[in-house]
């Protein structure tokens, strides 16, 4: 290797010193190669240079195209913004002051003594004054208004604006989350002219003083940074201009390499070549990263202003402007929620620079520096998300819209979520699971829960919890957990019986051991929860007391196929196996599917899909879609009212008795459910306004030391204690008659129980007391009242 190199060097050095000799000995090989080599070298050098220049040119053209294509038009993928339902205010509305105050607080309203600006509220004697902000609702834009509310008996008595009585006003809905692209960037776009000049001046002063003088890169800035870094012995200052910072955030990654730095510099130059300083500054103000809220990245000063201070940018005071500008350097390090002292020091530094450059006066600086760091309540709804609900919204929207459009076009989604009910549901779940674990001796979180709350008439989803970790974007048990429903299946069995016309609630059914052999020779022998046999019982008692043997016998009599058909009519959108064990709920469903089933009972016979979306608008508020309640009538109101009597008996005398004591009314319909070995605890119930389905279980599917009544029902109870319970009103009037122990309609004097009958059923004569007594003595009516004979009677 060394020998090969030496001659080359020699030739090279000799050619420099003795160049005239080079031309003579043409036939001398070494002498002849010297000029050729030099010529070749130059030639290659030029060729290479041209190639490099060409490549650089192509690269620059490519960069230029990249810069222009991404910077023109829509610069950002705007996530869809999701809003809760607006709080409608109207005379007669039942609204506690606690709820009103909470909802205002969650919506970033501030309590003040004098209500003079939008976003504030106060009291005037017993009246409430709310200065509602301007807002573009799904149907129209409404200006800011000052609303006066008076209350009587817990209801709104009157509302007025400027002394004029109004029938309806709305508080703008809470922002409850977004449907984000993969990077989870969220932002509100703002035009440069809407940004306070002090903020722009402060930003330029702190981040890039020569911004209006350079062409994208600043040699002076780089040298200054180098000097500062060498003096400090570490990196203390960056030399990037605002344009370079924008390029890095907008086009590039955070990779620290020379290659990235060169690319950044060229792109900054190109950006400055094509766009004005104002355009670049506006993009910077919308792009800049200013914090994190869970998975959500807070970008742009408009969103950051709302996020940290619950204000529009225009409403920021000097102290807040300085803090926001100061945070650009390190949003996490200077986070005012977590590090108020650091944030304060940084703010004061920015204020000092602003005063130094005469952007503000010394008096303004001193005044602003004297203020405490005041940030919005970090627990307010604007910063919280409702993962289970957002997942449901996303799933339902994807039936009509592409995910890509939801993530990028800035749609505004107006939903059905009731923040007050959601709050009550989350609290109830967390409180009760903790209690259950403590009572059961578990030291670690062991149980999980899922809840769905809907309106009974429109199936609007008002609250949903998919996990005890209510802010966790993970497995949504309310939507996706398939769990055995236990006795929640029973109302479908009894509905099938009532619909057949051969049964009514006074029909006597036998609760005694039952044994059914399967095709594989296995025996199905269900027992009651308490292992007792209750003998002949009224049909209604078999359901309200959740008797397994009586229900299994009834189901076998009316037919498995008939019961499966009922499940499908109720709106259950899954394949139900035709096995006898489905009669007692050995069928798996999600809480949402159970909700759909019970929705039909709650709504009076209309099968409705739980619905989470009210309306969709574009980013500029053009209405795209509005959804209204839809429901096909699958059962008559008379039949459903009859079934609801049975569900109310669960509260009167059955497994839900606790609710009657708590609410001091029996006008509640519900059903407990417990799967085999107590692996699942359920309660589904409704009042006149809401239906709630509650599931409690373990992710590892192990047994639990409680039933549906002990595990799930108390959560339901807590939710309704918070939301207020409205006793059920009948859908239709049923006919009533007294019946004897055999379930025969008799005169009042010898009746043992008053029972409801569907209109038109009580056509026959009431049995006299003598006849009743005679029948009772012979016991001959017992079997004939069991909805007619069948092969099942013959078998057992």
């Amino acid at each position, binding site marked *: 290797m060394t020998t090969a190199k030496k001659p080359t060097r020699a030739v090279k050095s000799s050619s420099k010193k003795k160049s005239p000799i080079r031309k003579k000995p043409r036939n001398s090989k070494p002498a002849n190669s010297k000029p050729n080599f030099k010529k070749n070298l130059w030639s290659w050098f030029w060729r290479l240079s041209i190639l490099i220049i060409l490549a650089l040119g192509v690269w620059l053209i490519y960069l230029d195209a990249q810069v222009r294509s991404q910077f023109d038009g829509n610069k950002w993928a705007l996530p869809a913004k999701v809003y809760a339902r607006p709080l409608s205010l109207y*005379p007669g509305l*039942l609204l506690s002051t606690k709820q009103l105050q909470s909802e205002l607080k969650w919506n970033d309203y501030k309590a003040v003594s004098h209500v003079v600006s939008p976003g504030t509220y106060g009291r005037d004697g017993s009246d409430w004054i709310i200065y509602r902000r301007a807002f573009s609702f799904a149907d129209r834009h409404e200006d800011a208004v000052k609303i006066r509310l008076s209350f009587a*008996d817990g209801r709104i008595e009157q509302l007025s604006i400027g002394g004029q009585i109004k029938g*309806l006003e709305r508080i703008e809905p809470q922002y409850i989350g977004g449907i984000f692209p993969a990077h989870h960037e969220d932002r509100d776009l703002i035009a440069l002219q809407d940004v306070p000049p002090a903020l722009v001046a402060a930003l330029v002063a702190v981040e890039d003083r020569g911004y209006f003088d350079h062409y994208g890169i600043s040699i002076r800035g780089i040298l200054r940074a180098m000097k500062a870094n060498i003096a400090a012995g570490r990196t203390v200052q960056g030399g990037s201009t605002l344009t370079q910072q924008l390029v890095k955030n907008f086009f590039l990654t955070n990779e620290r390499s020379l290659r990235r730095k060169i690319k950044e510099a060229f792109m900054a130059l190109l950006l400055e070549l094509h766009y004005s300083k104002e355009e670049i500054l506006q993009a910077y103000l919308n792009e800049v990263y200013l914090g994190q809220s869970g998975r959500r990245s807070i970008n742009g000063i408009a969103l950051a202003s709302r996020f940290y201070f619950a204000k529009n940018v225009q409403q920021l005071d000097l102290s807040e402007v300085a803090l926001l500008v100061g945070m650009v350097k390190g949003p996490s390090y200077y986070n005012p929620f977590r590090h108020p002292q650091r944030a304060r020091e940084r703010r004061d530094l920015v204020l000092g620079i602003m005063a130094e450059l005469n952007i503000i006066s010394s008096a303004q600086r001193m005044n602003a520096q004297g203020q405490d760091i005041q940030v919005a309540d970090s627990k307010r709804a604007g910063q919280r998300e409702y993962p289970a609900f957002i997942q449901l919204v996303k799933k339902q929207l994807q039936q009509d819209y592409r995910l890509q459009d939801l993530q990028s076009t800035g749609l505004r989604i107006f939903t059905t979520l009731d923040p007050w009910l959601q709050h009550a549901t989350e609290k109830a779940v967390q409180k009760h699971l903790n209690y259950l674990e403590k009572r059961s001796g578990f030291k670690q979180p062991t149980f999980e829960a899922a809840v769905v709350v809907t309106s009974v*008439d429109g199936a609007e989803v008002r609250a949903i919890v998919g996990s005890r970790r209510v802010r966790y974007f993970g497995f949504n048990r309310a939507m996706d957990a398939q769990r055995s429903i236990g006795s929640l299946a029973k109302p479908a069995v009894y509905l099938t019986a009532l619909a057949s016309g051969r049964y009514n609630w006074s029909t006597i059914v036998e609760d005694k051991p039952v044994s059914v052999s399967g095709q594989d020779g296995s025996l199905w022998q269900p027992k009651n929860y308490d292992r007792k046999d209750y003998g002949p019982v009224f049909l209604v008692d078999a359901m309200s007391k959740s008797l397994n043997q009586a229900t299994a016998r009834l189901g076998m009599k009316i037919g498995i196929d008939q019961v499966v058909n009922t499940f499908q009519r109720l709106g259950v959108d899954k394949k139900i196996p035709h096995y006898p064990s489905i009669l007692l709920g050995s069928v798996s469903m999600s809480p949402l599917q159970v909700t759909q089933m019970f929705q039909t009972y709650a709504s009076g016979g*209309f099968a409705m899909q739980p619905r989470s979306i009210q309306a969709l608008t574009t980013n500029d508020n053009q209405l795209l879609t509005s959804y*209204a309640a839809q429901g096909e*009538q699958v059962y008559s109101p008379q039949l459903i009212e009859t079934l609801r009597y049975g569900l109310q008996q669960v509260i009167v005398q059955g497994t839900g008795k606790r609710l009657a004591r708590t609410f001091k009314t029996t006008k509640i319909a519900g059903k407990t459910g417990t799967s085999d070995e107590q692996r699942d605890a359920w309660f589904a119930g409704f009042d006149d306004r809401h239906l709630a389905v509650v599931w409690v279980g373990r992710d590892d599917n192990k047994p639990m030391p409680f039933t549906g009544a002990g595990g799930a029902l108390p959560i339901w109870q807590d939710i309704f204690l918070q939301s207020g319970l409205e006793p059920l009103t009948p859908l239709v009037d049923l006919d009533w008659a007294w019946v004897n122990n055999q379930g025969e309609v008799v005169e009042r004097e010898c009746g043992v129980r008053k029972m409801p009958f569907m209109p038109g059923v009580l056509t026959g004569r009431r049995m006299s007391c003598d006849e009743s007594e005679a029948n009772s003595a012979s016991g001959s009516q017992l079997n004939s009242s069991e909805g007619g004979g069948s092969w099942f009677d013959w078998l057992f």
Partner: protein
Amino acid sequence: MVRLVVLIFVVISFLSACSSLPSSELNDPRLAQSSEEQKGSDNELIRLDEGTHHPAVQVLLSQAEEARQQGRNRQALSYLDQARQIQPRNSAIFYRQAWLNYQLGNLSQAQQLLQRAKLYMNTDKILQQRVILLQNNIDARSGL
């Protein structure tokens, strides 16, 4: 005698207090029903905001009518659904939802909503007639 009068007054007051509903229930807008007005001779609904309604419902019906007249039928339906959420068992609202859906040719939707109007029907004779008329129209257009 005076004592007797006072006693009777107290007893009557007590009984009347027992038999009356608390004022909070009487004011419940969910339980309030609308009252239709007859316009013209054929009993057909002409405007969505006809009749006497709860003030909040009245506002929404007026907005729905305004939207309908401007051809913004989707918004009109949205206002009607907002009214339904305030009074979920007001047959007059369900009837209007059915009526507008019928006008827009959504027959199955109109039929479903009319079923609800029938379920919560009150004693308003005009509304009853209108429901029958709309049912006949839906049947006729559906070829029943």
